[in-house]
């Protein structure tokens, strides 16, 4: 009933403003089949992604309701990916409402791009636009020539959505010596002013270089799993912690190619340890950075990134490695006057020798009408990607943009 009311409100809103409103969006059918599980369907989804733009003078609004029908469990999910107002002034803009805020120069890796939380209920397989959750925020941008100063205030913490524990995308838990119980009583951040998140960014775009400098006082999206020894069990109490960070990124043209870099220093991030005397958690400063290279090579766009995560003052009982190294590689080429696109994207985890390979072929049957056939192939036994070795998937997407 609630969903029907929301739909009616959205429709009423759209029709009221119909004279000036601009409608666009897409309709998509998405079917995914798990090849290692006898072709079992993991996704059978129909989506209506509706974008409504309205502007008058120096005020504009944007609403993006999304209707997802899951044909496997017959569930219709209605959500607002974004819904915000823009107010434009001569030298500054304000954006108020639920919005996706994207920072940094990395592709497919989240280093300084930590403002919008993520929906990882299907790991990192959906399009990035769909992984990012709109966050309720006030964003202020001040412009001076080619420079921008951006300040973001997020009044309430919204954590990243993790996969359900019964999902095929639930991450592998460490092996515990005793049965485990969970207590979620500390897994909430109160909705009050003092628990807000704030972030600040200076960016410059110019002939010589583009760069960003940022700092933020956030909550860590991943809760610390504090472990308490009980008579016959282990009690795990997830708890969110503050995560202050500073970071920077740049991109620069070098001889026809583009070189990119991005890095962040996180203060007192909580890491899981085997040592129960500290309740399974230790605080360590942590560095996450990447270097990237984009080049047009015989008509193909080639992009390469090396990513490193480093835990400072490492101790041996920390479950993560001191250094975690990952490589990404992307190659795309268009054919038939940009109606046929071949793409191959891969993540390769050096520590665990695991990988995610994502070949894709997309063909435009007509303008805005695309058929996409692709695969997600997981390689390895452990690590970020290897843990999903049983989840290799073939998929088909048919999408019409209007």
């Amino acid at each position, binding site marked *: 009933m609630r969903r029907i009311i929301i739909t009616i409100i959205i429709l009423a809103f759209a029709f009221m403003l119909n004279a000036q409103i601009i409608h666009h969006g897409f309709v998509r059918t998405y079917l995914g089949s798990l090849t290692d599980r006898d072709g079992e369907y993991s996704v059978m989804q129909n989506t209506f992604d509706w974008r409504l733009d309205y502007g008058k003078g120096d005020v504009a609004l944007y609403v993006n309701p999304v209707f997802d029908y899951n044909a496997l469990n017959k569930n219709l999910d209605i959500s607002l990916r974004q819904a915000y107002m823009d107010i434009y002034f001569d030298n500054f803009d304000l954006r108020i409402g639920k919005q996706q805020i994207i*920072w940094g*120069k990395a592709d497919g890796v989240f280093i300084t791009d930590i403002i919008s939380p993520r929906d990882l209920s299907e790991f990192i397989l959906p399009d990035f636009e769909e992984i990012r959750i709109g966050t309720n925020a006030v964003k202020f941008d001040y*412009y001076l020539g080619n420079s921008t100063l951006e300040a973001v205030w997020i009044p309430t913490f919204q954590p990243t959505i993790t996969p359900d524990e019964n999902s095929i995308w639930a991450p592998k838990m460490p092996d515990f010596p005793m049965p485990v119980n969970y207590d979620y009583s500390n897994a909430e951040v109160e909705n009050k002013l003092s628990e807000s998140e704030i972030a600040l960014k200076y960016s410059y775009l110019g002939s010589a270089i583009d760069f960003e400098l940022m700092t933020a006082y956030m909550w860590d999206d991943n809760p610390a799993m504090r472990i308490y020894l009980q008579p016959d069990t282990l009690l795990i109490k997830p708890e969110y912690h503050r995560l202050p960070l500073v970071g920077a990124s740049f991109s620069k043209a070098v001889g*026809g190619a583009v070189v990119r870099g991005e890095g962040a220093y996180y203060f007192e991030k909580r890491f899981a340890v085997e040592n129960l005397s500290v309740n399974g958690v230790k605080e360590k400063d942590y560095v996450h950075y990447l270097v990237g290279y984009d080049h047009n090579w015989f008509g193909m*766009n080639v992009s390469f990134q090396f990513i490193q995560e480093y835990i400072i003052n490492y101790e041996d009982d920390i479950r993560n490695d001191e250094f975690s190294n990952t490589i990404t590689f992307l190659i795309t080429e268009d054919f038939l006057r940009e*109606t046929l696109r071949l793409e191959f994207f891969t993540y390769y985890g050096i520590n665990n020798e695991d990988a995610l390979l994502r070949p894709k072929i997309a063909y435009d049957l007509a303008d805005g009408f695309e058929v996409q056939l692709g695969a997600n192939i997981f390689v390895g036994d452990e690590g970020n990607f290897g843990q999903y070795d049983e989840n290799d998937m073939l998929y088909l997407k048919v999408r019409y943009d209007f």
Partner: protein
Amino acid sequence: MKKFTIILMAAIIMTATLSAQEITGLKIIENVYDRPTGQDQEGDLTMSLINSRGDERVREIKQYLKDFGDMEKKIMFFVSPADVRNTSFMSWSYDEAGKDDDQWIYLPALKKVKRISSDSKSDYFMGSDFTYDDLGDRHPSSDTHKLLREEEIDGENCYVVESIPKEEEYMYSKTITWIVKDKWIGKKKEFYDEDDDLLKTLTLKKSEKIKDYIVITISEMHNVQKDHTTKMELANVKVDTGISDNKFTERMMKRGM
């Protein structure tokens, strides 16, 4: 008095003959490059892609450009088809010979402005018959120019100039351009591939005088090898309206038109 008139006429004829003799391929191309086009310009660009069967696909773009003295800035907002709507592209090109353009693209799905490689100059723009380089102003010093002959097209006297790129790996082995005398505007241009075979022909279909400037409003690029044509139409052209410098920024790429 009669003597003076004869001397004056002789001087005029000599000057005219001298200047006609002096004009070189390079000078003609420089005159085209330097032809005044105004401080700024905006317009609605429609590209119609027509294949050999006559099927047509249409791309619509709103574009703004402005001369900043030693560089030209251009910003394009993609209007249609629907799947590229709200994408924007910005380029800054420099008068300095050999200096690469700076280019950025804003993809609404990624929500960020991304610097892109300027090595894609030989790529075709949005599936059309124009490469990125065909759409820009190629610097005269990039080619060696030779005046081949003078010829009349559609009742207009033209210089015919052959231009051979200095860069060995360039996508064309040569181009031949028909330039209308005194107007310094290209009437027709032929592009030859690496085997020296004719690849494409660009034809000026319509030009308009807007304020004091000649603006090409309709042109057509025909790929003779693939029998594919792109018709480029520029409508609602406004020149010298004083477009703000702030139009050519990251802010506007994200905000859109």
